[in-house]
């Protein structure tokens, strides 16, 4: 069963969450001292897999995990670390008010008697940093250290735990080009010490640059493992994309009517500048851009959640003043936000309550809310959108992501909106539910609603939108028609018009899998 060549072996590992099989019989073997890339789209199950290894999730019965040939069942991160497995998370959260050395030794401070031995800690931190070639002053406060450096420090910390295997979760997400190269160098140095690395990434370029082997997970299933030298980019893309490429959503055309919404010179300093566009009845208007380009901020401003500082919004040719969400609601604008948990759901309240919240008045009889009326309306929405829930009184937290999203869309449909804004409408929901939501969006357009969609999924934007506005660093780069829009053009514009790097043609083909934020290397 076990093989001494491997530091880690996962055999038939599954993980089921209520309503979702996040991992289905996954196998993964990592050779000692190798860099092993793990690829797959968001929601493919990479994070779940890593959380199992780090003791944050318990896998379903029936699978086995071996670390260095020994059965491995961590109950908490500390178990994993003690066994020799360390993790560098995607978003590191160091204690900003402590020094580099203090962060390095956090939780395992060197002591002299009962006092902390700062000098020894500084010295040892310095030693490890120097060995790995990370230039950093150990006395610096963490708040003055760049994200890239913090990332490198996290790697150094993992090394100092004497880890035999380090998991790096998309370490280059927040880094600039030159910082990425520095990171590569350090990753190689770590490998030279005989430490194996699981390198999670979306980016083809860095997988080929760094890794010895690559494994692909798709929809919770293990697709395969290949030597990086034995596989072409095209083959790897095929593994990742699978059949999905052929199943790009085909929308039908809808008659587009008069101009409904006009946005002129909308600005919020530091977030976005001089945004201009119009949306017509029945039109689906996409907004593309990299994460941090200011897309969500623009739609939040239109809805009044975080109002713009200057610029005008016209509805039916008349200027409207939107300072707060209540104003937008009054003008029949609906807004399905990006983060369901943070700004969408009231998790411990019922499906009905979640649906009716923006406008309670229609459910009132003599100033009292009629439960019966509210339930009736919620039930009809449940049938209409085919929301899978035992009853409309069920607490919404018990529903799957896709059904929660449908409830949130229903919430705004009950408002009978003229304009519906959807920010990442299919984030973290399964493929079946995605297709249903796409159909629903097109259906709403047919009913003459103006739809604005913000999305990081290229394929989603390309297949749904009539026109796409591309943003880069808070600026509007341009608006392109559906017929002209291709992955390459949008990426080009999103990157601020820079010449795409050499593997951009490959990236173009990975449309359905790679999110735009992963496409910039």
């Amino acid at each position, binding site marked *: 069963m076990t093989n001494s060549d491997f530091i880690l072996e996962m055999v038939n590992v599954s993980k089921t969450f209520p309503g979702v099989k996040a991992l289905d019989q996954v196998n993964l073997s990592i050779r000692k001292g190798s860099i092993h890339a793990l690829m797959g789209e968001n929601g493919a199950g990479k994070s779940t897999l890593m959380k199992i290894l780090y003791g944050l999730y318990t896998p379903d019965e029936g699978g086995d995990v071996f670390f260095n040939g020994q059965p491995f069942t961590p109950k908490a991160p500390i178990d994993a670390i003690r066994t020799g497995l360390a993790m560098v998370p995607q978003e590191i959260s160091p204690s900003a008010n402590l020094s580099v050395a203090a962060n390095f030794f956090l939780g395992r401070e060197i002591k002299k008697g009962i006092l902390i031995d700062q000098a020894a800690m500084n010295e040892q931190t310095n030693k490890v940093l120097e060995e790995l070639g990370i230039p950093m002053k150990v006395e610096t406060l963490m708040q003055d250290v760049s994200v890239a450096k913090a990332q490198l420090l996290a790697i150094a910390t993992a090394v100092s735990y004497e880890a035999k295997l380090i998991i790096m979760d998309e370490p280059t997400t927040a880094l600039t080009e030159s910082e990425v190269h520095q990171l590569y160098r350090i990753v190689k140095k770590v490998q030279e010490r005989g430490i194996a690395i699981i390198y999670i990434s979306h980016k083809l370029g860095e997988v080929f640059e760094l890794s010895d082997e690559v494994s692909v997970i798709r929809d919770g299933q293990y697709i395969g493992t290949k030597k990086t030298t034995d596989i072409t980019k095209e083959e790897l893309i095929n593994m990742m994309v699978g059949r999905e490429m052929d199943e790009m959503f085909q929308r039908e055309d809808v008659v587009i009517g008069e101009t409904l919404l006009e946005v002129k010179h909308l600005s919020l300093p530091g977030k976005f500048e001089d945004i201009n566009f119009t949306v017509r009845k029945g039109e689906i208007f996409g907004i593309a851009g990299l994460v941090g380009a200011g897309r969500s901020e623009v739609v939040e401003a239109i*809805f009044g*959640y975080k109002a713009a500082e200057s610029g005008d919004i016209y509805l039916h040719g008349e200027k409207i003043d939107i300072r*707060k*969400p*209540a104003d*937008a*609601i*009054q003008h029949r604008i609906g*807004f399905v*936000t990006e983060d369901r948990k*943070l*700004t*969408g*759901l*009231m*998790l*411990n*309240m019922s499906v009905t*309550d979640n649906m*009716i*919240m*923006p*406008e*309670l*008045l229609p459910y*009132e009889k003599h*100033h*009292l*809310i009629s*439960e019966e009326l509210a339930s009736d309306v919620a039930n009809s929405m449940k049938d209409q959108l085919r929301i*899978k829930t*035992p*009853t409309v009184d*069920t*607490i919404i*937290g*018990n529903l799957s992501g896709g059904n929660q999203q449908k409830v949130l869309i229903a*919430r705004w449909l009950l408002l009978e909106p003229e304009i519906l804004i959807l920010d990442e409408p299919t984030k973290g929901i399964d493929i079946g539910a995605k297709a249903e939501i796409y159909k629903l969006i097109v259906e709403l357009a047919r009913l003459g609603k103006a739809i604005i969609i913000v999305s990081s999924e290229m394929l989603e934007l390309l297949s749904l939108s009539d026109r796409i506005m591309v943003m880069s660093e808070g600026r509007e780069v341009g608006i392109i028609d559906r017929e002209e829009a291709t992955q390459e053009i949008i990426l080009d514009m999103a990157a601020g018009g820079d010449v795409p790097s050499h593997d951009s043609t490959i990236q173009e083909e990975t449309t359905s899998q790679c999110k735009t934020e992963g496409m910039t290397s």
Partner: protein
Amino acid sequence: MIKSANNSMRKTSYTEILNKYGMLLILILLFSALSLKIDGFASFRNIFSILEQVSMFGIIAIGVTFAIVTGGIDLSSGAVVALASVVGASIVTGTEGYGMTIFAFGAAMFVGSICGLINGTITAYGRIPPFIATLGMMTMARGVAQLVSNGRPVDASSDAFTSIGDSAIFGVPSLVIIYVLVAVTCHIMMSRMSFGRHVFAIGGNVNTAKICGVNVEITLLKVYILAGALAGLAGAMLTSRAYAGNPTFGNMWELDAIAAAVIGGTSLAGGVGSVPMCIVGALIIGVMNKGLNMLGVDPYWQQIIKGMIIIGAVLLDAQKRKKA
């Protein structure tokens, strides 16, 4: 698919019933046990005596429940009771007739509302955590009560005024009737009116509430004003029953009120709670107080037992949450 949906539905409703009525069951068990042990515990006289005790901090607990459901807290209610009692007593002392009585009750509630308005303003517009805002108010209201009364009890001898605390209608003490009226009104407000939904929405997810167009600041303001007014009402009730206002009244009542809310299943995380369950929580405390007294349990031990029950209730709540 349909079968599994049905199964999960049955399972949910079963646990839901236990979650919903578990504390009611405990109240009934507690009452039955004490009735068996103590002669006359189940008598009307004793029951009304318990209800009368409960009515005052029970009314406070209702206001506090609103605050807790928004994800906040009100620590000032005990001190507001003292301030309202002193103000109410100063007004009625030496007067006659129900006009002045009504005025005194109104003034007590008004003073409470002002305290609540300040709490709410600091919380909603100053963005100071309600724990701190109401902690400050707790000390200030007590201080003002001492100032107004010179630190001494204020006579409230007015036949009309004190009759509120003494009288009974069809054998039911007036204070209990007031409690019932307040509870019914607040229950309707919380469960059936937009205001109540907004209170839950804020506690459920304040960002979502904003996105849904809820005026969070105004709603919070109303909640703290309501909590203050109810504390003022409780102060007037206590004064009419004691024939005097006293700046030391209501000491630690805020904690009994919070305990009643929490024992009744109101979640300190916000978004969960109800008036009926808050009453059950208050009754559990009331029955326990009376029972332990009649059993002659050492008052020090009574405090220890009460503390354990509060912690037990919160533990139970946390356990439920973990499962869900």
